[in-house]
């Protein structure tokens, strides 16, 4: 069992957990992910590593409550245990001194972009950063991102905080100016990554994305996560999760993310009904 040692609510639907997993924390690197399972009935949920602490032996995870499993995860707190915690999986980000780099984090993607930005900064890069979310409430880690960036642009889709823009707008401004970065990293919802890649493509700026496809084992065994990159089938879990965004077949990825929509809806309904029942009976006592 793997104990939750800290919890922070970054937004009403965005939660941060620290998990006690010393062996994983010892090995984890920016760009990698873990797979967690809440309990004996749980599914295997892939989550990108948001941070690691080799001295305390903790892994930081940030997740957004979307479906049944992430909502259930959100009900847990400090001291609770996870049934499984596997990692570090996937290939780490290739960190070196590229000169000037640009990192883009959208929504919950701000979490995994942070350790990448930090590692790039530590490697001597000039780090330009853009973070964005739908609204102010969903934005987090502005301070942390500022601490590892030479320059940080913050935006919200609705303008409720900082600049009113999609992340692709400042992205385009930066790459079309004379401070063109050597490489861009963009992490966030698939649709955001798709448009970031589309934005940089005409400028020929290499753009790395971290794909969030459906997985089961996360070790190359099942092929649930397969995507097409440069016309070839690749497994996100072992060949990725990072790929060249200009080579990714985004429509295939977006289509495959929808495979279980019906079942997910049903599972969520059952879960919400159960939660409601629990609350009612608890209040009745």
């Amino acid at each position, binding site marked *: 069992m793997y104990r939750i040692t800290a919890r922070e609510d970054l937004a009403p639907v965005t939660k941060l957990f620290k998990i006690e997993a010393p*062996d*994983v924390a010892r*090995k984890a690197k920016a760009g990698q992910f873990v797979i967690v*399972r809440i309990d004996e*009935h*749980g*599914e*295997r949920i892939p989550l990108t590593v948001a941070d690691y602490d080799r001295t305390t032996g903790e892994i930081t995870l940030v997740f957004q409550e979307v479906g*049944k*499993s992430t909502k259930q995860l959100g009900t847990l707190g400090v001291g609770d245990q996870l*049934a*499984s*915690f*596997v*990692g*570090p*999986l996937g290939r780490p980000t290739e960190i070196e001194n590229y000169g000037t780099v640009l990192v883009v984090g959208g929504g919950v993607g701000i979490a995994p972009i942070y350790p990448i930005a930090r590692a790039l900064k530590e490697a001597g890069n000039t780090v330009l950063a853009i973070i964005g979310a739908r609204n102010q409430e969903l934005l987090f880690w502005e301070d942390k991102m500022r601490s590892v960036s030479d320059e940080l642009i913050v935006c919200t889709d609705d303008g409720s905080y900082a600049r009113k823009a999609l992340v692709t707008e400042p992205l385009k401004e930066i790459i079309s100016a004379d401070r063109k970065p050597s490489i861009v990293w963009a992490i966030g919802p698939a649709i955001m990554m798709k448009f970031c890649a589309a934005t940089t493509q005409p400028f020929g700026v290499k753009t790395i994305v971290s794909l969030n496809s459906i997985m*089961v*084992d996360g*070790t*190359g*065994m*099942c*092929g*649930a996560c*397969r*995507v*097409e990159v440069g016309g070839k*089938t690749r497994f996100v879990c*072992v060949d990725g999760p990072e790929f060249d965004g200009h080579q990714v077949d985004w*429509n*295939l990825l977006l*289509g*495959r993310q*929808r*495979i*279980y929509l019906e*079942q*997910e809806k*049903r*599972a969520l309904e*059952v879960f919400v009904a159960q939660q409601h029942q629990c609350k009612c009976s608890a209040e009745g006592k």
Partner: protein
Amino acid sequence: MAKVQPRNEMPRQDPQARGRNFNEVALGYSPEVALAEAQRCLQCKKPTCIEGCPVQVRIPEFILALREGDMWGAVTALKDKNNLPAICGRVCPQETQCEEHCVLGKKFEPVAIGRLERFVADWEIGQGVRTPEVPAPNGKRVAVIGAGPSGLTCAGDLAKLGYKVTIFESLHAPGGVLIYGIPEFRLPKSIVATEVKYVQSLGVELKLNSVIGKLFTVDELFADGYDAIFLGTGAGLPMFMNIPGENLNGVYSANEFLTRTNLMKAYLFPEYDTPIMLGKHVAVVGAGNVAMDSARCALRLGAEEVQVVYRRTKAEAPARAEELANAEEEGIQFHYLTSPVEVLGTDKGWVRAIKLQKQQLGEPDASGRPRPVPIPGSEYEMAADLVVMALGTRPNPMVFTDTPDLERSKHGTVVANEVTGRTKKQRIWAGGDIVTGAATVISAMGAGKRSAADIDAYLKSPAEPWWAE
């Protein structure tokens, strides 16, 4: 010589009923029938059946004990060589092993050794498995990578010899293919759990959720003080055909389809969280045991029709005859001499059909089986809303991370001595599918057993050279 009684059939669930539930199909012998079957054994002075068994189970001995009513004696004789008898009694291809060598089989039907093995093992489980005596620790530590058939066997044998064994398993449950691949209706997971518990009761430590190659490399395990390492990570990577449309929604690898169904219990969704796509018209590509398991799972998940597509004929199908028969009985349809050339989708990206091409048999290929030769112009469509690719598997390269000195073949299998299991890297042994490519549970167990013996011999007196051609 007394008249030879016919071989006793084992009762099975009715094909109609069982096609809609995940309960075990084969129901096991009653004590009376087991006794009657045991009476058929000739108790040969030179038993040939043992030669047919990859782990050399003392077959006549356990059958004799059973016949004499000494059930614990039967258990002891059986488990002396086989740490996992309740599993082997269910999934071994006895017809090509012990039973093929049974003298009785020359004129009549062979003794149903597998069914008797299952009977004895199940009897023990019913009584409560006894914890065996294990010798005092000899101070040496062995790391076993993978809690599948070869790893569990190797670990069990080494523990019985006094080694401190740790098994590292990447999944959240032990058993390997026994738990993620072979379905509940063929091998109940409670049986696997009991057999694993037995191996643990020998003092073996089990570390789940531990992906070697990621969490630790094998060299880090040596640095941590292990004296030897056994690799039993199997052949877990699914193969695809690389035909157009293979990544459409509705195309599964058999590994994914079976893992969702078995390990993750998707057939109990939403009680269990893992979902699975349900097909009304399911096509399974391939005719091995994994294909049969996939087809029969699809049926139990509620498919209206399940069609198996295979490029050769029934005679070449790699599945056990018994599994083909089970599938046929349950109403699964077979299309031999056909091979997919494309998976066709709707405009929304979901499978709607597969395009098949007729084949004819040609000259034998490298496998010795006749090569399927496509017949041009014979393409046709078969409606399908779910396609399962059961084309075989390759070893997962993850365990080789940062270990370039572990030599591998061009098929991705690790090079190892057939008898001892020694790899080209000192103090690393390997066995099972990681060496042979996808094969059987019992052959993996045999390899685990032989490696355990060689690990013991080597650690007692490390003679050089390590590797001899």
